[in-house]
């Protein structure tokens, strides 16, 4: 079953300069009762986005129309906490294709990649530059090129490389998923199981 392909995007970004954004903030536990993968974007950052009476909290970045785009930029240790993939589904369902931070929690990073969302790790200095450029001009665009593994601030033309596992890069570029790959080596799995049983 294919994941969404990702190759290249030029987009404005939504800044969330908070450290340790945990998966309970991304999607609170009470919204995990669904049995499908759809519709989680509605509750992305629910308790930061809406008050007790479900009214939008104007200060929160997702409620501010000047900030929009396919790129979410978060503070250090983004996605820590629970393994809930619902967090990646919520980020993707809301419309983000890329999440940028100076540091990602491992499970969130895997979950994002398994859903065609590209997590990009940049240095703390570069992250600070991104936040400062958005602060100056919320319409500033960023260019993400997976093929060349580069992330560019278009206003300053400052560019940085980013790392991605070559296998995961291939998956994203082609829309492959891990299960397809594992099914293709089922003879190796069989051999392993037989050898261990002996």
């Amino acid at each position, binding site marked *: *079953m294919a994941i969404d392909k990702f190759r290249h995007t030029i987009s404005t970004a939504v800044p969330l300069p908070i450290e340790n954004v*945990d998966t309970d*903030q991304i999607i*609170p536990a009470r919204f995990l*009762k669904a049995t499908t993968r759809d519709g989680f974007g509605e509750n992305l950052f629910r*308790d930061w986005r809406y008050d007790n009476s479900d009214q939008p909290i104007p200060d929160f970045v997702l409620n501010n129309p000047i900030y929009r785009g396919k790129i979410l930029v978060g503070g250090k240790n983004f996605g820590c*906490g629970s393994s809930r*993939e619902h967090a990646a589904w919520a980020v993707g369902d809301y419309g983000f294709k890329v999440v940028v931070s100076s540091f990602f929690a491992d499970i969130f990073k895997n979950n994002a990649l398994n859903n065609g969302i590209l997590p990009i790790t940049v240095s703390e200095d570069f992250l600070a530059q991104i936040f400062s450029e958005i602060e100056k001009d919320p319409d500033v665009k960023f260019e993400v090129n997976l093929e060349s593994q580069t992330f560019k601030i278009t206003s300053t033309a400052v560019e940085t490389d980013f790392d991605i596992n070559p296998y995961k890069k291939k998956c994203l570029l082609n829309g492959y998923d891990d*299960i397809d790959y*594992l099914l293709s080596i089922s003879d190796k799995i069989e051999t392993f199981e037989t050898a261990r049983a002996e």
Partner: protein
Amino acid sequence: MGKTLFDKIWDAHVIDEIEGGPSVLYIDKHLIHEVTSPQAFNGINKRGLKVRRPERTVATPDHNVPTIDQHLPIKDKLSKYQVDKLTENCEQHGVELYGLNHPYQGIVHVVGPQMGITQPGMTMVCGDSHTSTHGAFGTIAFGIGTSEVEMVLATQCILQPKPKKMRITVNGSLKNGVTSKDVILYIISEISASGATGFFVEYAGEVFRSMSMEARMTVCNMSIEMGARGGLIAPDQKTFDYVEGREYAPKGTDWDKAIAKWTKLNTDADAVFDEELKFDAADIEPMITYGTNPGMGVGITGSIPSVGDISSKEVPSFQKSLEYMGFKDGDVMIGKKVDYVFVGSCTNGRIEDLRSVADFVKGKKKADNITAWIVPGSKQVEKQAIKEGIVDVLEEAGFKMRQPGCSACLAMNDDKVPKGKYAVSTSNRNFEGRQGPGSRTLLASPLTAAAVAITGKIIDPRTILQN
């Protein structure tokens, strides 16, 4: 060069390596629950696949179950649907299920060890980050997302990059009143909530050696709270004694063979870790958290750091956190008023935890301002607590006994701490809203939670122990 315990187990389970990519790792045991598995079953059904090894898969509902009136149909429609879906999926695919009201039902990480499903040298996964708990048995156990649950259901394998290795050694003896929960909260407070990201941790040293299996489970459980992929402790006689005779444990000659294999599960003297950390047991006090991640903890007699002591980059997050908690920088923790006490969860919902609370509160009454919930980790824990008279002691003290489940640890069901209220909790996360929208959580050991329940405010449990 020698190998670490982690390398030995990992290498024995690698089926294939993708060039420049992740390893294909074979999974011995897969635990599943109602919240992170339905989409995975949908996925394999859509592909027309079966569960590859149903006998390596065990299911129990825990995250989303009510903790009162479990014999009645679940009232919340969505929760009921999710729990029913687990039953349906397990029936369809021939997976063993300990459903609601089954004598073995409980929190998945309490159930695994108590049934002997968890054994040394295994690879184990579950769609829950606290799967690291099982590392207490010398097991590579880690939490996974739902796409990965689907992967394991379909192929019994997972694609994983090999993590780096860290050893955390704590030598010396713990002071009176300092428990395994305090040890792990101390380590996290020292290295931060992201201090072990990218690593798999081995816990070594006298302190972990002297711990009971349940205490070791508490430590390994919270490995994820410092970002680690998992944490493990080399198995020893205590491990073998714990596993022996349990439902899934090897029996007869298989047991002897297993022991022969398990005794080799240790880190070679000349093995090298990517990072080594050492702590001294004498420096550890009973711990309490004051902020909104598990790294924001202090010794209970201490105070919240001053803004001036925080690096400038971290100040906005630190201040946001304190504002949420309603605390000020530099505040002393002792004496702060508390509204709720929650004893339970996969971190501290086992029989030893309930015993430690009952021993402490026996003959005392909870403070009037406290609502105290005790949620056993499983039906077996509940049964044992009744048998030992623990339930009577706790109820006489004014605690409310609930039925097994994850409960107020993540507040998916109705067990929620109200907005603005303070809860001292034996669980694992103090994130904003974790125990209910607007709730404020202070993480601590069962012993500290018991002392707080009696006095109604933050107190050093040692001051009561001495009397």
